[in-house]
């Protein structure tokens, strides 16, 4: 369970908006976080707090395969991204680096500026105060395990060590 403020974005938020290529001469997560969402909302990096939630429309993360995009979002403190749909490489990358993301058909109706509680186990999103609820597709348990481990590589290392 996580709770945070909602930052709303529209459809087709591309990877250049999430982290412009001009900052890709580094892969340091802390540095990438400083420029997260910069070309969509220059104030985002300054306002986002640990536990906050990005809510967006269709095709979130379209464009480049740059893993720097989910890395920047995670390093900025975002607890999860909820969108109507995700671009496929971004979807894979997010889990691989341990950023939980949820597909929710009603993502657009989550109120701007609201605060939400997100249950990653069940996919239930609750607006704090009004109690309004939205149901996202739950994350399969093995993918939750990848997120909990901190990404695919720590997950694989952990599994290998457990098997020894």
């Amino acid at each position, binding site marked *: 369970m996580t709770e945070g403020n909602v930052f709303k974005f529209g459809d*087709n938020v*591309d990877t*250049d*908006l999430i982290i*412009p*290529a*001009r900052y*890709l*001469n*580094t*892969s340091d997560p802390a540095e990438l976080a400083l420029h997260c969402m910069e*070309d*969509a909302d220059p104030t985002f990096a300054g306002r986002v707090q640990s536990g906050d939630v990005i809510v967006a429309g*269709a*095709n979130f993360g*379209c*464009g*480049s*395969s*740059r*893993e*720097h995009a989910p*890395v920047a979002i995670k390093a900025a403190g975002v607890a999860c991204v909820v969108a109507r*749909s995700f*671009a*496929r*490489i971004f979807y*894979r*990358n997010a889990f*691989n*680096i341990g950023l939980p993301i949820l597909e929710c058909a009603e993502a657009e109706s989550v109120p701007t500026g609201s605060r939400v509680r997100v249950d990653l186990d069940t996919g239930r999103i609750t607006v704090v105060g009004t109690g309004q609820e939205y149901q996202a597709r739950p994350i399969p348990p093995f993918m939750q395990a990848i997120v909990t481990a901190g*990404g*695919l*590589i*720590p997950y*694989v*290392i952990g599994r290998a060590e457990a098997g020894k």
Partner: protein
Amino acid sequence: MPQTVTEKILAAHAGKEYVEPGELISAKVDVLLGNDITAPLAIREFERVGVPVFDPAAVVMVPDHFTPNKDIKSAEQAKVMREFARRHDLPNYFEVGRMGIEHCLLPEQGLVGPGDVVIGADSHTCTYGALGAFATGVGSTDLAAAMALGETWFKVPESLKFVYTGKLGPWVGGKDLILHAIGEIGVEGALYCAMEFCGPVIENLSLDGRLTMCNMAVEAGAKNGIIAADDKTDAYVRGRARRPYRVFASDPDAGYKKVYEFDVSDLEPCVACPHLPDNVRPVSRAGDVKIDQVVVGSCTNGRMDDLRLAARVLSGRKVHKNVRMIVIPGTQEIYLQALKEGLIETFIVAGAVFSTPTCGPCLGGHMGILAKGERAVSTTNRNFVGRMGHPESEVYLANPAVAAASAIAGRIAGPEEVS
């Protein structure tokens, strides 16, 4: 059981008779690709696992995005990749001076062949579908895991079939065919799917044109673009391929999620207006759009066909005084061929700059960044907000003939307007 070409390649690499859309499989990978932006992250993850590279010859690394290095940070990134390549004895590391834009370089060097499974930590890895391969973009972590294991998991995509019929107009090519399709289905029209291109127009299209088409499949959200290998593919691959290859074709009764049929006889050259590749209209309806810069190049349109086409339009003419035109060959071999054919002279006499191979301007990296309020016509693949520089600049995507004509006119123009 009837299958599509994509399904057959995936089945063969998963050690199965057949696969079905939606099925999760583990498949062997023939080629793994990284570049100077994505490889450093992959290397960091790979080294945490602490195993050797499963097959050094299968891993291809190309410094092409910020190279020749634009600053100290990008030099440090390129160095990470260079040292990794040396440490693991990778025969397919291509240094500046012998390199090219990755998706132009790999087919040219015979590193990809029909029937291969290719993953690359670059979204435009789907380019190699033009050779009848299954090729898809992944992130750095997936590349890292596959460098260790030699295989990766895939969800078998549903296939969309695009049948092109009719006769192409004189200035219409692969770029227009793919822009037209993206304009019709939208930037998420092929989300999680394979885009299979076929029909008489595709059969007549050059390999360069086919590579352009498959390159942009990802702009419709596709997992891969693919054109089944035919005699033209064979003629291209023969003599280049470094490994044996295997040709697959879709069964006539294979299952498709949807079939699109386009009669393209009346298709004009297309322009994708800001800020999405699906904002497509015919060049004659682009309006009076003054421009500041033109870029001909990139993994989309930096091949010989493209340079020849741009040079044909520019020959004996001058780039407009208010326009900066940048021409970038896809590889060193293309550079040399352009030199031999006199194309470079045509570009320079016309007032264009001719560069070493680099992805630089396409992603707003270096060598052609736009200032606030500036507009570019570019043969590249994306026109997202801030793609080529300032978030308040604009990119219009077009084929090389339209790009060259626009450079002459100082505004978006079709080649017929300047000839």
